[in-house]
């Protein structure tokens, strides 16, 4: 916490461009220390022409003693681009292990794939593409429904192995293949594996970094390219390291940690950079909590987030994948752009006030903020453990909520957990029972829901300029529907506590 001043600027930026031979396309140029000084269009041409021969170049593998240390992210990208070494700032063609797309960006990506590779083109690998309808599912919006149809037609045509379809919108349970929110489904279905490269047409694809893999969000055009080519030109990001030590107090969740970090470095503090999370606190986190941490790196502008794989990771994966994977770890001598240290035992429950995820405040500082509703859901805050956490607060208080409280499980699996897993200390009650007793809305059908507003008839969408405490990830103007709506981002503990009082509330009021 006190290391916040430890500069986000590289101590020696020049060191990163020393090895910058195969410059090419990137989204990296805004960080001035990495861009070529005075690059003009002519220079670009020149670079363009030297790009091709470089592709076949393979430096000989070096021995351990002379090899340059790399971070996890650098190592993953090096392996995926069949190079023995990469440095931040280098542009390299990376082989993709998994490409994920969904109903909002899938149709456009497919359109580009067909336009560029041909109407009869085949995808590069039918087993490496995962298509997950999840955004606008339970809506009467015809175009939204059509978009899911486009995905289905494409998956049939291309014989895509992993398509989590939904046909019967009236009852999601009648669709055994249907999962729900893509980032959570990817993890639950075993598509997230250490050491791999996962790209998705969704900015929160970075969630999968929790598994010690490189995962980042891309647009339709890049996805259309990957569909046909199986690779993409990526720039190697430098890494910021976040060391979180100390015992996590029982009133904090990973959401508080990431809100703390974003508040520290701002919504652009990690732009073009990788964020690596280490320390005893991180090691103690469950996989779902690590996913929350990595989920919001994009809210700091980050390209990806990573947590080193460990026994927790391997245990989670045991019954989810039979595919071999090979975790990688940052070398001890690896160079980090900067390092931030936090003593987690001293942190307090946080919120991000409207209208920016870095508008950090202590939950208790906002106790006079009257709220109209609470929303628990999304890839950030709609996992099984998020509902368990909320149930724990309701259980501890024994009271009823004072504002409408909307619950949207991320996936069908989470929904089943909410209705079946006993909440510890409740004498065997499930989350759903506790929510009902507290007066919450009945848990809704799993999907992205009102996290991003969506079509007007989306469940729990903010159609009025109300004030909401939400476990989601963004609170930009209009994010959950109404432009004048106000969103306070918070942990499931804080959200549940706020539902009980009708004001933004520190969960310690109920948990201690």
């Amino acid at each position, binding site marked *: 916490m006190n290391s916040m001043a430890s500069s986000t600027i590289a101590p020696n930026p020049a060191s990163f461009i020393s090895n910058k031979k195969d*410059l*090419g*396309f*990137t*989204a*990296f*140029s*805004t960080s001035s220390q*990495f*861009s*070529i*000084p*005075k*690059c*003009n*269009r*002519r*220079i*670009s*041409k*020149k*670079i*363009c022409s030297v*790009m091709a021969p470089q*592709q076949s170049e393979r430096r000989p593998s070096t021995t351990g003693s002379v090899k340059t240390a790399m971070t996890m992210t650098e190592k993953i990208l090096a392996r995926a681009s069949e190079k023995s070494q990469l440095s931040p700032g280098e542009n390299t*063609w990376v082989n993709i292990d998994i490409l994920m797309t969904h109903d909002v*960006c899938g149709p*456009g990506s497919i*359109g*580009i794939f067909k336009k*560029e590779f041909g109407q009869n083109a085949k995808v590069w690998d039918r087993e490496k593409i995962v298509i997950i309808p999840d*955004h606008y599912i339970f809506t009467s919006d015809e*175009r939204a429904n059509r*978009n899911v149809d*486009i995905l289905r037609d494409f998956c049939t045509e291309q014989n895509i192995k992993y398509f989590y379809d939904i046909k019967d919108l009236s009852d999601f349970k009648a669709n055994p293949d249907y999962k729900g929110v893509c980032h959570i489904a990817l993890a639950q279905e075993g598509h997230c594996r250490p050491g791999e490269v996962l790209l998705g*047409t969704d*900015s929160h694809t970075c969630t999968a970094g929790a598994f010690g893999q490189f995962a980042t*969000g*891309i*647009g*339709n*055009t*890049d996805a259309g*390219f990957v569909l*046909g080519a199986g*690779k*993409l*030109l990526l*720039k190697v990001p430098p890494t910021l390291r976040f060391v979180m030590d100390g015992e996590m107090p029982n009133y904090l969740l990973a959401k508080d940690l990431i809100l703390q970090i974003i508040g520290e470095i701002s*919504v*652009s503090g990690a*732009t073009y950079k990788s964020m690596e999370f280490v320390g005893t606190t991180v090691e103690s986190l469950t996989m779902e909590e690590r996913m929350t941490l990595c989920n919001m790196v994009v809210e700091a502008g980050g*390209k990806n987030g990573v947590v080193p794989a460990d026994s927790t990771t391997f245990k989670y994966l045991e019954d989810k994948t039979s595919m071999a994977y090979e975790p990688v770890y940052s070398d001890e001598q690896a160079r980090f752009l900067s390092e931030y240290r936090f003593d987690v035992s001293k942190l307090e429950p946080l919120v991000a006030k409207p209208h920016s995820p870095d508008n950090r405040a202590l939950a208790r500082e906002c106790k006079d903020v009257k709220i109209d509703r609470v929303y628990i859901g999304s890839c950030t805050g709609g996992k099984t453990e998020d509902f368990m956490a909320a149930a724990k607060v309701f259980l501890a208080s024994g009271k009823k909520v004072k504002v409408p409280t909307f619950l949207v499980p991320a996936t069908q699996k989470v929904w089943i957990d909410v209705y079946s897993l006993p909440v510890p200390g409740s004498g065997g009650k499930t989350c759903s029972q506790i929510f009902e007793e507290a007066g919450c809305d009945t848990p809704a059908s799993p999907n992205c829901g009102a996290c991003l*507003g969506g*079509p*007007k008839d989306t469940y729990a969408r903010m159609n009025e300029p109300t004030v909401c405490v939400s476990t989601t990830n*963004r609170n930009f*103007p*209009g994010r959950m529907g109404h432009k*004048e709506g106000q969103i306070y981002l918070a942990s499931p503990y804080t959200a549940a506590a706020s539902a009980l009082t009708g004001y933004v509330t520190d969960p310690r009021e109920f948990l201690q």
Partner: protein
Amino acid sequence: MAASSLSLSPNPTTFTTSPKPSFSPSYQTTPHFIKFPNTSQTPTHLIVKPLTTHSPRSSLSSIIPRATANPSSSPTSTTQTSFHGLCYVVGDNIDTDQIIPAEYLTLVPSNPAEYEKLGSYALIGLPSSYTTRFVEPNENKSKYSIVIGGYNFGCGSSREHAPVALGAAGVAAVVAESYARIFFRNSVATGEVYPLESEGRICEECKTGDTITIELAESRLINHTTGKEYKLKPIGDAGPVIEAGGIFAYARNTGMIPTK
């Protein structure tokens, strides 16, 4: 935040400030986009303007040798080298929900009719404090072909609908203090808008409706309404892809995927 790095300076020796609009009137009457064939680009273009002191000279010297070192690289390029039009000015952290709210994401950008429609909703998510609409009701196109913003433009979602909506509305270039990564990349990969970076907070110096010219070769933005000039950052590593016309063309040029 980065106000201290303002490129507009009272110091008369800095090249970023121009006391008067020094452009010839013909520029302002030239319809919209001025195209220079790349191959005809000569140093004379760079001295159209009587800029003071050493800075332009140093940029000149860095341009000439590189340009001449590779004379055969652009035989067929028709890349635009300047933009001209009215600007629409926004602030910091303009996120993708403000550029194109999620309720319009059912529109598929690769579908031509829906592409047009996306343009009609460009920047419709801006708060009501923006009293001038970017696109008039019942119009598909905006009269503003240049968007000027602050830092972290395009943050938020990876939706390619964002640069597409701007492009479909008729925006040729965005000039911001900095960009969120995915928006920048999507702009480059699609070729929908040219994402340029200013060296200072131009968004505080320009007003919606000002007449702007952007000279790419000179990394220069001219506000004809105020008579001021600003330095832009060079496009950087993304240049080759923009040059080529997007990620597909770039990959074909470099042999990464077969040519059509």
